[in-house]
């Protein structure tokens, strides 16, 4: 891999704590297991072997919010569901991130009516919006990689 040349005789790699932690966070980011509508089908096929989310250390979809780092809001959120969504978000341990997958989760999509929340950013803070109705698995993977880029740029002084 070319990496062993950098090891030297002692077998030690030097890096900053920030980089090491961000590297760890990006490569074992466990998404929460829940889908709300048709976008969930695309999220499922993202995990399946053709697209294989486990390449990014994300194959563990956690059914408990207490074990997950990433919430992928896959689908439209009704106003009756919104308090439940916020409660799940509050139960996730820090650090946590949110991807709004698809048009409905991002801005309400085609459902501009009384029953659907016009974008989940009214309920939870969103890091990455993925466009599409529904987005293809490639688009979701692109959103996840964009989030990885964002996490890699986090600074130690901002964590406190």
């Amino acid at each position, binding site marked *: 891999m070319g990496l062993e040349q950098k090891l030297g005789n002692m077998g030690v790699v030097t890096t900053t704590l920030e980089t090491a932690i961000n590297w760890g966070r990006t490569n074992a980011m466990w998404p929460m297991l829940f889908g709300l509508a048709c976008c969930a089908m695309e999220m499922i096929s993202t995990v399946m072997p053709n697209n294989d989310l486990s390449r990014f250390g994300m194959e563990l979809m956690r059914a408990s919010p207490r074990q997950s780092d990433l919430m992928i809001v896959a689908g439209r959120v009704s*106003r*009756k569901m919104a308090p439940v969504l*916020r409660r799940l978000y509050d139960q996730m341990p820090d650090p946590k991130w949110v991807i709004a997958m698809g048009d409905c989760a991002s801005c*309400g999509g085609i459902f*501009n*009516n*009384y*029953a659907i929340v*016009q*974008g989940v*950013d*009214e*309920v*939870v*803070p969103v890091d990455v919006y993925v466009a599409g109705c529904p987005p293809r698995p490639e688009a979701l993977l692109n959103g996840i990689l964009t989030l990885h880029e964002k996490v890699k740029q986090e600074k130690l002084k901002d964590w406190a």
Partner: protein
Amino acid sequence: MTHIQDTLAALTAKFGEPKAGAALEAVTEFRGETTLVVARASLLDVLRFLKETPELGFTFLAYLSAWDDWPNEPRFNVCYQLRNLTLSSNLRVKVLVPGDDPVLPTVIGVHINANWYERELWDMFGLKITGHPDLRRILMPEDWEGHPLRRDYPLGYEEVEFTFNFEEIEKKKPYAKN
């Protein structure tokens, strides 16, 4: 004679000829579907007669719903879709409910499965079902105000965004905090 024609004859013999103001208000047929408009006061009697007379046998309430004809009066059209399971014939019983008096008697005593349908009528149209044992909202959250399927209920809660009003809508949009 078909089963529906037999049914209509039996109903006429029991409740009188269909005319405005009578127990049976009208009978219409459209593409093989028969609709029977009954007065609100005689709804329970008609449904019970249709169910409990053996040769009629409309024992199954397949669906119960309504629509709002606002601004025309009477405003609410409540439809009881009945089915005879052995002869596979359908009959629609319709009740017209005025907007200033949105009250309807419960039919749980005749068809037990009307319970949740009537809760939906209350939730979506605001029809007060008298005698219902558990009249709560069924679809909308419990603290919801208004009845969404009424036609005078506003459709959406956010304007459609264009380039000229984008910033204005953006200012009003509630964003969540961490």
